């Protein structure tokens, strides 16, 4: 006879099977290159292609309003956005609305010292030869400028002395805010940390880049898929009853029903994050033939139980958006735990993945497959009141 407590444990607290623990690998080899290009995770460059940011309450209007307020109050703007929600695309769309001279300092290079910061700022301000940030701040401009600084958190390393660069940059922004309209972006988790650790929000007027609505996500996905017909396949998780219902339908009704179910799952998984919607779509795409794409909703894994030390490393990655092995070692340098080994564990679980090289350094960031699930995990296990 089975122990009743064991029965309850199995029934309500069952461990998932091994194959359910990892995110499905997209069938990229079955998808033609032109199709994959449409579903890349790179930001949208064409302003017209950016979806859901216009309108009276939209982010584009908010940027215009912040600009007009800056003319009298000289307050820089901080855009806080969840990773993958489309902040860079938004900035690409906002650029034509901003007056010249303007400069978009994209998050393509690492900035880890005052010298690197100065080197990055010189072209942004159109100045040659300044030898220090103070010297650069003293330069006079003929007309006001707009400078967009992407990913403020790249100036941070969470350790003693690791806040100096960000502090210097904030001083620089304050020293130049009358002649430069600064727009900075930051990851929402970094803002949560920095707002509490060093009152970052006090230096800016802050606007959160909101998640896209379900209809906007669907429109964005369908736009990328334009020119291809969709064929929805039965999901592995369908019950016998559902399969029987589908068998009774004619082909068109079956496709419609399967399509609705597919999008329902996609939108639920995406939670307003376009990057999550794209990875779901790619994992669902079984192949493309004669301009028809075959889609089957993938299994969505839940993150496994994890040790406290792994969660702490994970949180550090959230706070910095991405970290290299060496940086993890530095953040946890006085810890008895091997940060590198912990990062390895997280990589092997598929919670993190390698980011495109920046300044020749390999960094790791949160896998979109787990973005919301891991946030929820940290919220619960580390008692964080993240939004």
């Amino acid at each position: 006879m089975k122990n009743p407590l064991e029965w309850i444990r199995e029934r309500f607290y069952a461990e998932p099977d091994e194959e359910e623990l990892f995110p499905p690998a997209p069938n990229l080899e079955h998808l033609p290159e032109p199709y994959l290009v449409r579903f890349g995770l790179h930001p949208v460059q064409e302003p017209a292609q950016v979806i859901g940011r216009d309108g009276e309450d939209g982010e584009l209007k908010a940027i215009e309003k912040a600009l007009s307020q800056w003319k009298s109050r000289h307050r820089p703007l901080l855009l806080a956005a969840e990773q993958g929600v489309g902040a860079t695309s938004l900035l690409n769309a906002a650029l034509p609305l901003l007056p010249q001279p303007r400069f978009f300092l994209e998050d393509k290079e690492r900035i880890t010292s005052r010298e690197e910061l100065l080197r990055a700022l010189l072209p942004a301000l159109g100045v040659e030869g300044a030898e220090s940030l103070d010297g650069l701040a003293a330069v006079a401009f003929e007309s006001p400028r707009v400078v967009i600084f992407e990913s403020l958190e790249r100036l941070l390393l969470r350790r003693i002395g690791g806040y100096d660069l960000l502090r210097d940059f904030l001083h620089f922004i304050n020293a130049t805010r009358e002649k430069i309209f600064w727009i900075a972006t930051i990851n929402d988790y970094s803002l949560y940390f920095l707002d509490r650790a060093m009152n970052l929000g006090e230096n800016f007027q802050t606007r959160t880049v909101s998640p896209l609505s379900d209809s906007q996500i669907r429109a964005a996905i369908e736009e990328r898929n334009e020119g291809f017909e969709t064929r929805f396949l039965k999901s592995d998780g369908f019950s016998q009853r559902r399969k029987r219902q589908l068998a009774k339908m004619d082909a068109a009704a079956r496709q419609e029903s399967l399509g609705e179910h597919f999008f329902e799952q996609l939108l639920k998984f995406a939670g307003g994050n376009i990057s999550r919607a794209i990875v779901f779509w790619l994992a669902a795409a079984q192949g493309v033939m004669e301009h028809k794409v075959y889609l089957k909703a993938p299994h969505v894994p839940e993150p496994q139980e994890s040790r406290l030390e792994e969660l702490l490393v994970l949180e550090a990655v959230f706070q910095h958006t991405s970290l290299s092995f060496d940086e993890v070692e530095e953040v946890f340098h006085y810890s008895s735990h091997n940060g590198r080994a912990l990062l390895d564990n997280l990589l092997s679980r598929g919670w993190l993945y390698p980011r495109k090289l920046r300044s020749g350094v390999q960094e790791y960031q949160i896998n979109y497959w787990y973005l919301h699930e891991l946030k929820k995990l940290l919220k619960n296990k580390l008692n964080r009141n993240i939004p």
Partner: protein
Amino acid sequence: MIRKPLYRRLAGATALLALPVPLLAQGERSDSWADFIEGLKNLIPGSMEDAFLDSLKDNPGLLVEVLFALPVVLGGTYLLTQLIKWLITQAANRSNRHRVQWLRAYPIVRLVAWAIAIGFLLQLLLRDHWGIFILGLVIVVAVVSKDGLRDLLSGLWLTVERPFSVGDRITASGYYGEVKDIGLRATTVNTLDDSMVSIPNSFILNNAIANANAGHNYCMVVTELWLPIDADLRRARRIAYEAVISSPYLNLDQPVKVLVFDHFREQLATVIKVKAYVLDTQYEKLFQSDVAEAAKQAFRREGVYGSLVD
């Protein structure tokens, strides 16, 4: 599942034991007794037509009721409270954010379960003078062992008044640790060196108790950093502050204070007290150690210790 032959053997043994008892029985059959037997019949498979239970239902006898009802009700209540405790512990482990709230619920649920069970038994027992006799006996035993009674009443009072709950960090009788259980006789505290200390409830009720987190899952942690009296305070303060905000154990939603004091007793010194909240009381000492270690390394690296340390 209970097998019928086993049940029949148990019933037969009980009937043998109870044989002389009906002679002593004075009471009438009560509705709650009949309900209780009906409940037993529903619980035990295949016993709906059982003649023994039917006869017991119609002609109980007080001590037969006691023999049946006492072990079944007390045992059942005990099992039920253990099951609830297990479920609550599982829920607390799964939802760390609400861990303390879950653990706080258990003493109340347990009290209610026992109150219902004892109320039911009293209702059966107090029908006649035998019941009053037994109750009197219980009271006499309780008064004789009056420390036990005092602890019991204190335990009830602690459960109702709740100056602290399971999961809180308290200091009582010189012991500091996490409250693991508030029993009816004693409160069990798990100290930081992992000893389980059982403190009588009457002692707790009559003495001052310090509660570090008062029902929250976080608590304030004060870390003292000792420096030479002539240390560069500006630099030392910055290091101390950054050591705290960089600690992964910090509760970010609570304020951080860095205070500086002079110490003039045995030796001249500057003491930096860092007051911050740990994200979970379980990590209190890890947090303290983390801040102290990081700050000391930085003090040394940046020469804040001066000539004291090479």
